[in-house]
């Protein structure tokens, strides 16, 4: 059986909405992402404690006419990409505190 994956928004990012589109910038490499509808749903639900398959089933499949298997595969590719740029944290265990130290005031 495949283990469940958990996703959480990193704190090492800057994020703001323009209209309905979240724009997210990585603090590690300054890459800027504009999230599309599906990515926005996953981004909003990435609380660290809800498994990815549950997000896909309850949020994505409820909104779009897509099978859970296909949606999960697409979601996996998306979160891997966002994680590579430090925007999301991924784990096989729930992520209670997805924190990156803010350090001292500069």
């Amino acid at each position, binding site marked *: 059986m495949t283990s469940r994956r958990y996703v959480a928004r990193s704190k090492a990012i800057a994020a703001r909405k*323009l209209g309905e589109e979240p*724009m997210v910038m990585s603090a590690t490499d300054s890459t800027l992402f504009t999230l599309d509808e599906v990515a926005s749903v996953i981004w909003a639900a990435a609380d660290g404690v809800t498994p990815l398959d549950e997000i896909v089933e309850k949020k994505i499949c409820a909104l779009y006419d897509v099978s859970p298997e296909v949606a999960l595969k697409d979601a996996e590719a998306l979160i891997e990409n966002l994680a590579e740029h430090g925007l999301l944290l991924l784990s096989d265990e729930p992520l209670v505190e997805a924190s*990156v130290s803010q350090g001292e005031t500069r």
Partner: protein
Amino acid sequence: MPVVTAAARSTGVVVEIGGLPIRLRCDDPNFLRQIEERYAGYISSANDARFEFEIELSPQSAGPRDEDVSVTWDSGHWLMTRGDFRAEWNPSTARGRVRQTVNPYSLDCVLRIVHTLLLAREGGFLLHASSAIRNGRAFLFSGVSGAGKTTIASLAPPDAALLTDEISYVIPSDGRFDAVGTPFYGELARPGLNLRAPIEALYLLAKGPENKIEEIGSADAVRGLLGNILFFARDPEFVNLVFNTAFDFVGRVPVRRLTFVPNASVWELIV
């Protein structure tokens, strides 16, 4: 030509860009003279410089000047390094040290970094852009290397006051954003005029077969702006400050795409 006196050697030279006076001290009077020449128009007689750097000259650099700049925060200090310099700055004491070879370009880079860090806190930024004042309003022309920043600056008519052909200085002021002249130049090889004016528009440059100005959406404006803001510190707090400032800027200043033919006719659109 400026003459460095014994008094200047002890007090150093104050370089004031964007209203931020930075005192630069160095034991070598010849290097102080180079600083005065390099930053002519930006040398201040202010006695109360807000920031101070002690410059120590070394005979040779540890590495090449084209090496990537590294800016990191460590134990209360910003550390800035490149092949040709190593600098540290303590924001709480407003003092720092620079170890570099005898060339003003190393110092130029340190000053750019320090100003990006200071401006981030004040809601401003440095932008890869040429800029000029016309009819009391500032126009910015932004783009990557080769986009036409220097070209459009060199085509400016006599009534336009050039602020820079390379790095524009943007600061918030009473609910708007102002552009300020900088000594940071590109291929034009001369400092901008030390003037200030409210920003009328930011143009993202593209070369093409005709002159035209196009409106662009907010997302493209933010993307275009952030792509040209000088980022040195890969630091969450710093990135957040600049990111939010970019959104504020786009909310207050029109950002448009300017396609232009490289001749003086483009300035007929900039009024």
